[in-house]
């Protein structure tokens, strides 16, 4: 959705510098994976599309920050955007956790 452009740059580069290798995830259910899977219906499996913005490999701070902005907007008014309402359904801790997991996925 063009209303939420995602800045690229330093934060992104930092996030990409230390991705968690998927091969290292031998234990079932890494933290945040199931939570983040709520995003996949619209943003693609593992946040890699097809669909609305790709989330995989974006910085956790960016994803989390944007979700907080959406929540603030959704609380102020019945927004036109489905995501500003949707974001209100998750706790702070849940948003942090899913953002963290998404940030660790290969783009």
């Amino acid at each position: 959705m063009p209303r939420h452009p995602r800045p690229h740059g330093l934060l992104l580069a930092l996030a990409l510098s230390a991705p968690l290798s998927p091969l290292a995830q031998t234990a079932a259910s890494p933290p945040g994976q199931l939570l983040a899977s709520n995003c996949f219906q619209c943003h693609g499996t593992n946040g890699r599309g097809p669909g609305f913005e790709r989330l995989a490999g974006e910085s956790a701070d960016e994803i989390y920050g944007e979700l907080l902005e959406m929540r603030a907007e959704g609380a102020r008014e019945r927004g036109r955007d489905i995501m500003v309402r949707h974001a209100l359904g998750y706790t702070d801790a849940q948003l942090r956790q899913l953002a963290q997991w998404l940030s660790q996925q290969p783009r």
Partner: protein
Amino acid sequence: MNRRELLQALAAAGLSHLALPVRAQAQATDAGGNPLAIPPASPKARVIVVGGGMAGTTFCKYMRMWGDAVDVTLVERFASFRSPILSNELLVGRRTSANLTFGYTALRERYGVRVITSAVTEVDPVAATVRLKDGRVLSGDRVVLATGIEFDPMPGLTDANAMPHAWQGGAQAVLLKNQMAAMPANGTMVLTIPKTPYRCPPGPYERACTIADWMKVRKPRAKLIVLDANPDFVAHRDNFSNAFFGLHSQVIEYHTGVDVTFADVAQRTLHTSTGQIQGDVINLIRRQRAPAIVRRAGLATATERRFAPVDVLSYASTVAPRVHVIGDSSATTQPKAGHIANQEAKVCADALARIFGGGQPDPQPVTNSACYSTITATQAAWLTAVFQYDPVSRTMVPAPDSSAASVGWDSEHFEEMEEWFDALMADSFA
């Protein structure tokens, strides 16, 4: 044998393409590092899945991705899935059967799921076995039933095609489309809405709006009579009441609290709790329940013995713990709809991955629902809700602030609907 050794062995056997990633390295292995594209050579667990709709296919894919060497077999009656989602678009000619059909190739070739095209005649909930129409019996550590819905019989309805429900996509949707096209320009169409719970709560109202909008152009003096068994709009009250009593008020006649008791096929007439009504086309959306194999197995003990109660931490049947019921056949507080069925499937797959690894299901699962409803040929509205697990009631409870609908409808939401559909189907089938 570790992953590298396996790859070397496959390469030596000329089979290395089997283990090559289809899209990217990240999707090439399951959680245990085993190749994803082929069934595990030494499975640590086996799951039999019945039903290849939104819930069943999503479960298969994520069970393979998130499990460690879990062997997954899908049994589905049809060779492909004909989507009920967006099938109202088919009725008015904006979509075709072809672009609402989704196959099982990715499940087979990308995720190493064994896919069997067959009907299931019996489920043994204690032994966790499934009997196929040809007599074969499949057994697993767990059975997952993603069996969707079936319809109550309707007295008098000797030919189901005479008054199609068109509520499962496929042939009946095409049939209803053809019946609508053949109706006279001043004809009467009747659409019935069953008592809750039924599949896709906003669906019948969306269908009424979509057809009313189509009638204005194609059948300019036609009427659409909507008979709702419920006391009021089941979903999206603001938007649908504005559309029914405003935008489409010249076409739609809306009656609430009307139960259909008998279908007179020869007279094209419905007998109802408030009298008889005749229609040139009758879209009889009958009351719904879990299919016979679920009910015969003794699992459908909730909602007037229509649907299967489950523990929503794992979707294990509360009657038979080795059988899990996901999607529309289960009795939960969540709507019966494809988007949330996809998420229920992921919760179930995650729970089984943990259980097979010796752990416990996630104690705080979250699911979500999102959907778009067409109001006109170019405009749509949306609904969304997030459900959080409540440990006290042991149910999924809608997070109050997140349960919302769009304010009105517009063309931007219509475009989002197309993107949402493509993404949802890719997450479930690709």
